[in-house]
């Protein structure tokens, strides 16, 4: 059983190497490569689901090369697998499988490089999820980074992909080196790289400068990957230009992996030693709220479909961070369920945009207005996914949003629900506006933004000449993903299962005992006491309310020029164009400047609180 754990990384790596090695033989028979890649990803998905189901009764730990720790000192590298991280890895593999299936007909002339890069990307993300060693975390972080940079620049004949890849690679590399500096610092103190061992070594001492600085520095790379304001600038650039099936992975899981990393590093290493939960909650809540608001505002203003979805991802990343920041079992439960629902739905939305791009050769909302009526099935899937994104029950997202809000209420932070609902309404309205305008021709086309139109027009070269109908291999994956999001939302006892996982994730003592002493702990203890996860009427009403409000706002945006009031010379969101273009300048020097500013602010705040 346990020997399945290394295979989850080894199989995609071997698949990638195999595809590259066989290219000289099979170079002309692309379908062979396609099939190998899809089968590999599907096998990894099955493997990870099996692993996830096997973690219900306790954490599983796997020591590479068989070096089990002696006297609490780890000699090798371990995989420490629980419900949450194996679930996230399974989501990753699912989305990679869906993206590869979608690519079957999407690129007609694709080189074998694409398949190899996608499989390496998968291996990097799975390794990142499962590892229990902080330097190993950095290695997988870099592996998924390098694969993602290369995939972003997959169309080097265009300007956009090159600039997007440069901005992505430089900001994320700077973040990664901050993280590595933090790892070096904490190693200098503890002489350990295993997360559990580091946690044990710093627990019980007063947290001093070194611990605080190491924590903040390690967070830097993860915050950058998670696109938290002010480290988020790369995301919209990379999403706007990466091939659409790759965007599925960027938005659906890669960003969420950054947030997972924050949770992992906090609860497996620093939580007990750092103390000062109040200060950490405050800092993370501030970051999460800023991210949610910025993402929602920028999202509403966008006309470029991929950028619009990218900013929606930024908004959701902020909401997930709020869930984590509460440091409660229910908050983490909410974030976990939210991540799964969002990953499936956002992936479906991106795949629908891919179909639009393939068939209608544009991603510009203005010029596409009404033209999507030719794609009725895609329109239905996109509309359903948009409603799900706006927290419509019974898709899984409303549960996540509701639990985060409930946990906020329990900690006397009732404004959290308000932040979740308002920003979700804005984002939901933006996506529903696209659904109504593009696929059903409702209302008027939004006014043209010349610069954005120029950028959006470049996209048409991404995919090859379209056929007269959408291939099945392109429409089935989004339908399956939306259905899956529905199924997760209807899963009985989802809340209890997820909260079990969250409680185990947060029990640092149990984690230490399992990893370092090989203990088997069937019932972890909750830090703050698990809360009620039954689905309440309030959850359902809030979810329905959010979806209805989004729909109303979307219709208002579509019919704005025909509304009897307030219409002369004013269009919602026009005031935002200036600031958006000033901040989202496309110049990587600016982005790195903002990262240093963010680091100084976070560091300063925690230094004054914990000193």
């Amino acid at each position: 059983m346990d020997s399945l754990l290394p295979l989850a990384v080894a199989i995609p790596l071997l698949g990638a190497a195999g595809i590259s090695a066989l290219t000289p033989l099979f170079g002309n028979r692309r379908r062979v490569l396609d099939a190998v890649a899809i089968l590999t990803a599907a096998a990894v998905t099955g493997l990870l689901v099996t692993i996830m189901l096997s973690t219900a009764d306790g954490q599983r730990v796997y020591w590479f090369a068989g070096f089990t720790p002696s006297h609490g000192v780890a000699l090798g590298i371990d995989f420490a697998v629980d419900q949450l991280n194996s679930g996230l890895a399974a989501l990753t593999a699912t989305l990679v499988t869906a993206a590869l299936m979608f690519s079957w007909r999407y690129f007609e002339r694709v080189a074998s490089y694409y398949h190899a890069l996608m499989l390496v990307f998968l291996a990097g993300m799975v390794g990142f999820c499962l590892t229990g060693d902080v330097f190993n975390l950095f290695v997988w972080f870099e592996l998924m980074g390098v694969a993602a940079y290369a995939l972003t620049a997959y169309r080097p004949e265009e300007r956009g992909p090159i600039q997007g890849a440069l901005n992505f690679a430089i900001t994320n590399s700077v973040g990664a080196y901050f993280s590595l500096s933090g790892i070096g610092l904490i190693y200098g103190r503890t002489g350990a790289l295993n997360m559990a061992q580091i946690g044990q070594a710093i627990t019980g001492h007063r947290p001093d400068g070194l611990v605080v600085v190491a924590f903040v520095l390690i967070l830097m790379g993860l915050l950058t990957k998670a696109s938290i304001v002010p480290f988020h600038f790369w995301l919209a650039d990379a999403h706007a230009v990466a091939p659409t099936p790759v965007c599925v992975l960027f938005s659906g899981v890669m960003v969420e992996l950054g947030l997972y990393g924050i949770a992992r590093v906090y609860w497996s290493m620093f939580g007990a030693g750092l103390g000062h939960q109040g200060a950490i909650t405050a800092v993370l809540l501030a970051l999460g709220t800023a991210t949610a608001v910025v993402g929602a505002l920028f999202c509403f203003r966008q006309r470029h479909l991929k950028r619009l979805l990218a900013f929606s991802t930024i908004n959701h990343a902020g909401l997930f961070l709020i869930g984590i920041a509460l440091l409660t079992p229910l908050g983490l439960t909410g974030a976990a369920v939210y991540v799964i629902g969002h990953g499936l739905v956002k992936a479906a939305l991106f795949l629908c945009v891919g179909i639009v791009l393939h068939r209608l050769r544009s991603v510009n909302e203005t010029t596409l207005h009404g033209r999507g009526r030719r794609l009725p099935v895609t329109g239905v899937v996109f509309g359903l996914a948009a409603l799900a994104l706006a927290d419509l029950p019974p898709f899984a997202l409303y549960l996540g949003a509701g639990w985060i809000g409930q946990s906020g209420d329990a900690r006397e932070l009732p404004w959290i629900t308000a932040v979740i609902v308002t920003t979700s309404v804005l984002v939901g309205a933006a996506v529903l506006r696209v659904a109504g305008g593009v696929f059903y021709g409702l209302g008027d086309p939004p006014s043209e933004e010349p610069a954005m139109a120029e950028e959006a027009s470049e996209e048409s070269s991404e995919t090859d000449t379209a056929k007269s109908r959408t291939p099945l291999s392109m429409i089935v994956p989004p339908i399956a993903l939306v259905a899956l999001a529905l199924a997760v939302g209807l899963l009985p006892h989802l809340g209890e299962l997820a909260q079990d996982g969250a409680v185990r994730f947060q029990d640092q003592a149990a984690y230490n005992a399992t990893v370092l002493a090989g203990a088997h702990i069937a019932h972890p203890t909750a830090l703050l006491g698990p809360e009620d996860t039954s689905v309440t009427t309030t959850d359902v009403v809030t979810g329905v309310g959010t979806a209805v409000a989004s729909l109303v706002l979307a219709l208002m945006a579509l019919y704005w020029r025909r509304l009897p009031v307030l219409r002369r010379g004013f269009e919602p969101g026009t005031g935002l164009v200036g600031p958006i273009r000033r901040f989202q300048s496309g110049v990587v020097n600016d982005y790195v400047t903002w990262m240093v500013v963010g680091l100084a602010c976070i560091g300063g705040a925690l230094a004054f609180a914990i000193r």
Partner: protein
Amino acid sequence: MTPSQRRWVFLVAGGGFLAFYLWGLVGLPGFGHYPGPYGDIINAIAVSQTHATAVVSAVNFEYRAFDTLGEEFILFTAATGVATVLRHLREERDTSAMDEAMNRDVPATSDAIRMVTLAFIGPTIVVGWYLTSHAQTSPSGGFQGGIVLATAFVLVYLAGQFIVFKRLSPVALTDAIEAIGAGSFAAVGIAALALGAAYLSNILPLGSTPGAVNSAGTIPLISFFVGIEVSAAFILIIGELLEQTLIVREGNR
């Protein structure tokens, strides 16, 4: 932001960052006082446990071999990425650098340079092979050896033989060799699983004498595959980048 705004913002924020980072660095035990325990335990047990006298190699290829596996694939991915980004695009047409400088003669490589570089190729390969195959005994291993082996190919280019260089290392073949190196490393781990041991366990006999070339089990084997991977990756990367300077491809500006 304008450049000068950026500079001012950085001077303030960067100053804050510097102070913050120094606050952490002063908490270290002081230069020259490594506290352990990780490295000390490894130093104490590695030679008898793995029969490798080069403890850094024991860490790289055995205790933390899983890190090295990931790192190999980072290099593999980067080389694949370079090949992807610089691949021959359909709307590009090749013109040789000679056409660009119409009225100038391209100076031929002098015989002296050609002699010296060609004379160095043999010894370079020997040194590269020596380094790759002695990971278990001395400061060397697949990374160092792989890089040196790649330079042997670069010497062919320096001798003025870019065409020969490209013929010796066509992209698809180099990429395949690189993939075989990286994939074999992953497969060594699978072999251990098949024998019922943990992934990447040292499943081969360790040999009787620590420090002998035929000792330390899988360490020299992994080092060998790493050497293949590293040399092929760098030949691919260098070749692709050189090609960009030697063959001018007209893109759509």
